């Protein structure tokens, strides 16, 4: 009974957070740009009535609850805009997460000192420097590389836009690099932790090969730590998506958001940001579920 109550409480608190997030997001976009306070006769007077902002915010919030997304300022149906851009962003993010995971795990294994403490500070450098590279630089370098290839009549990568698979290669790679470095760091720490465990030392003592120790003893346990660390990179993935989509003119959710912000379409921008936020919550939840599943299967194996 207590467990059920806890679950209900947890679900309730999550839903509350989601509602609060939605309302605040809409509120931020509902404030008119000219909103300010002036001192008239010694009193602060707002240049735009606050209740009007709240009313405007409530209207958008209610229409969102009714799933009535309406139209953008350009007259396009918002659900269509969201659906097409959501599809593209989902493709971009899911592909890059898979790529980042594969790259990150292998890099993390190679970065870890595998019980050897001699070059610990150098290993720190190897893991810290890559995660310090701004996504802007990665995207700009990739674009320069694609331009260079295009000049040599190699059109494997397209610099910007969408339409063909070649257009998606660079954004996917650019988006996967930073999360890959983060995953590598998490992997490296998890692997190092496992190498300190008694059962690894025992296996070493028994003369197991290093490959066998790595894959059978270390990675099987380290994977839990890696998956547990995944939710912490969700926000990094989301903010990177903004940059990558914008720089590669990839028509996903964030490009759509920026277009509506530039047009001054507060209502559409608010709805898109709520969707981006929902994307974050879904992704975060997904990582938690994967983490729980991995945890459970590990425990079952242990039993």
């Amino acid at each position, binding site marked *: 009974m207590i467990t059920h109550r806890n679950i209900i409480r947890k679900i309730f608190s999550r839903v509350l957070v989601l509602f609060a997030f939605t309302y605040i997001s809409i509120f931020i976009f509902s*404030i008119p740009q000219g909103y300010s306070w002036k001192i008239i006769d010694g009193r602060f007077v707002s*240049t735009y009535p606050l209740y009007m902002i709240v009313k405007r915010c409530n209207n958008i919030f209610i229409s969102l609850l009714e799933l009535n997304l309406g139209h953008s300022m350009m007259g396009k149906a918002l659900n269509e805009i969201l659906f097409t851009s959501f599809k593209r962003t989902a493709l971009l993010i899911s592909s890059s997460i898979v790529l980042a995971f594969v790259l990150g795990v292998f890099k993390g294994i190679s970065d870890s000192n595998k019980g050897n403490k001699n070059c610990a500070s150098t290993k720190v450098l190897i893991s810290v420097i890559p995660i310090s590279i*701004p996504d802007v630089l990665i995207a700009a370098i990739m674009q*320069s590389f694609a*331009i260079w290839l295009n000049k040599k009549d190699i059109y494997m990568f397209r610099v910007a836009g969408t339409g063909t698979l070649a257009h998606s290669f660079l954004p996917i790679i650019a988006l996967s690099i930073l999360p890959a470095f983060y995953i590598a760091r998490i992997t490296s720490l998890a692997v190092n932790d496992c190498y300190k465990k008694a059962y690894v030392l025992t296996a070493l003592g028994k003369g197991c090969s290093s490959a066998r120790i790595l894959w059978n003893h270390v990675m099987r346990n380290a994977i839990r730590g890696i998956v547990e660390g995944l939710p912490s990179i969700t*926000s990094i993935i989301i*903010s990177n998506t903004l940059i990558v989509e914008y720089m590669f003119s990839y028509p996903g959710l964030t490009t759509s958001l920026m277009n509506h912000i530039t047009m001054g379409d507060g209502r559409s921008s608010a709805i898109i940001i709520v969707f981006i936020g929902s994307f974050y919550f879904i992704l975060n939840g997904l990582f938690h579920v994967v983490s729980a599943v991995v945890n459970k299967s590990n425990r079952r194996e242990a039993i």
Partner: protein
Amino acid sequence: MKKINMPLLIGSIILIFIFGMCLYPEYFSEADPYGRERTQYVYENGNSTLIIPPIPPNDEYPLGTDHRGRDLKSLIIYGSKLTIFSSLTVAIIRLIIALPLSIAAAYKVKFTNGFINFFNTMFSAFPLIIAVIVLSKIALFQDIFEDATYVNIFLLSALGWSRLAHMLKAKIDEILIQDFIEGEIAIGKNKLEITVQNILPHLIPSMIVLFCLETAMVLLSLSQLGVFGLLLSGGYESPSGEIRVPIEFDWSSMLSLSKYFYRGDYSYLAIYPAIAFALSIIGFNTLGEGLKIEFEKENSRVITLIRAIPSFLSPFRFIHEIKNYKNYKKSLLYKAGFYGLVLMIIFYPKYESSYGFNENNALKIAEELTDDRFQGRLTGFQDEDYNPSQYIAGKLKEYGVKAYEGDYILENVIQEVFNIKYAELSMIDTRTSSEKQLKFREDYLITSSFNYDGMLDVEVIETDRKAWREIIIEPDYYREKALVIDARTMRNYDFTSLNGYINNFVKPKAVIYIEQWEPKEERYKNDIINKYLEDTVTISLSSEAGDELLRMGKCKLRISVNTEKMNDVIGRSVMAYIPGTDKTRKNDFVIIGSNLDGIGYDLDEKYPSAGRASSAAISLEIARTMTQSGIKPDRDIIFVFWDGNMTDDRGSKSFFYKYLINSNYNIFYIDLMNLGYKDSDKLMIDNSKVFPKSKEEQDFIKLLKKNAKRNDLDLVYGTLYSPAAIDFTSSDSQPLLIDSFISDEIAFTPKDTIEKIDTHRLKQVGQMLLDTLIDSFAGGSNK
């Protein structure tokens, strides 16, 4: 062998380099960031090449230039200060917000934990950069903080502290479960005492580490904000410019400008600022990680050093050690050395130039130039036998400064000069027959030299282009009218087109422009002279009077204008020089130009133009000091005093065409505009036409800044206009303009009198210029 803490070492090296760049950018870059390459033809080996910025990286510009021709290397170096200090400020504010909240959350104060968690989730789901972009556009923040830098610092701090609070709380939780905390509780310490005496001292190492990592995070956010076009720095060069250009420099803004050039061959515009970001983020991250490694060591020297700092600086400890000096001899020796060094820095003797600028002489000359006997120094209206040119030439001769090309005076013919002798303008309401007379110079200005006396019907011209067709179809109808044009809302392009239509098809008797200026605001008459209209009375009406005229609707205007016009008058510029000693530099010149003429008077209202007179006086005094002190510059330094520089046939143009046009000279022109105002403790310089690659000119600007500081003057950058600078803007001549910061308020108005000038300011400006000239071209002002 002792292990080296590589992250700490590398992080420290990078940050020392970056902070060096922030504090002393001039040592890292040869060029000033405001210097620009411009679109121009460059002639080399008989071939001409058109250069259009942005210029890709080459030998002269290792990192290339931006689209405005500014050296990217200098922009990055000078931009480091604002970027790094802004990110440090944000990190500090975040720490200040996060620390009490995380302590409260660790003590399980109601709602604090939930608040931190909610904030964290909120701005993970709602990307921080989008929140900052949206909120920074709201007028409220701009009204409160005024500067874009402060708005962005505030928003980044107020919205981004939760992650830090989350991490701090985790650290405090770790401390709170330690055994010694239980002990402290057992002896009866309250929560505040435990926080101050136990938690904070144990938290300091983690706080330092987290501060470094947070600064790196802020820098990352700034780079992302830059991509989306958010400018960190405040101020824009032109409100109607094609791209918003910040006055200050920072890396984010550079990324925001480069967004127009991501594609094509200009990706370097994004890559180099991004590399600067990467380097600084690496610096802060590696320093943070290095410190973490160091703090985790059992016998860390760094921790010992950090802990020793408060004790070393403590005055109580110092007094205690002095009292027991026998026990603390070594420590006292270190402290004496430290405090001695501090005192030496504070009381280091001020630099004194070996060549004194005589401000009293300069003031005397300025007084004489503004005297009534020179009749306002208006070109064409001066006495033939005794005029300012002869006065200056006489002084130069007396000082022993050589005449340039054998003659002190350069004469040139000026086709037309005019002076408004009388003006009257009345608005007559045809319904009530009431008449309102407007005040000349307060409500309106006459901006043409056409004489007229009569009454005209008013015809308001719509700003809509379709309405202009009627003007062309029925020119006779409009010819006998006073055409009223509301220029306040018109774009320059439309304004020019409409003037073209009126001038070519109509040629009316009068055109009245309603402009955006307030009554009684003093206006510079040449500012508004309209060259497009001939044989038409052209009037500029203040915004208020214009509104009144528009309210009247169909009405009449009584206009009476009497101007004094003179054709083919002689302009007399004065020129002298100090010959250079280096024969290899015979094609290099430094020209110091100032204006000899005032801007005259309308009716009997005199414009003494004391700012211009004192500039000429400063120039004259510099020439005297250099000549009489026997200073030998390496190249010719020419002192020129322009006449008629507000006309089309100006002295500077005549000088350029006579002496410099067909030769391959390298000219550095310094224009002294309105100097010596006692209320102006700042000087404005415009070096945007000095090429970043010109080493000597850039060195001059660096020395000018240095000497300004020595003379307690602030230098600020801005866009200045001087007709002479137009003549000296070419591929081989570069103008530098210097003006008083407040000259807009005084110059060209009746307020510009000799009382506004004082000797202290003349000394400051004169000494700064004299020292810089000697330092740059004559071996140094410190003998």
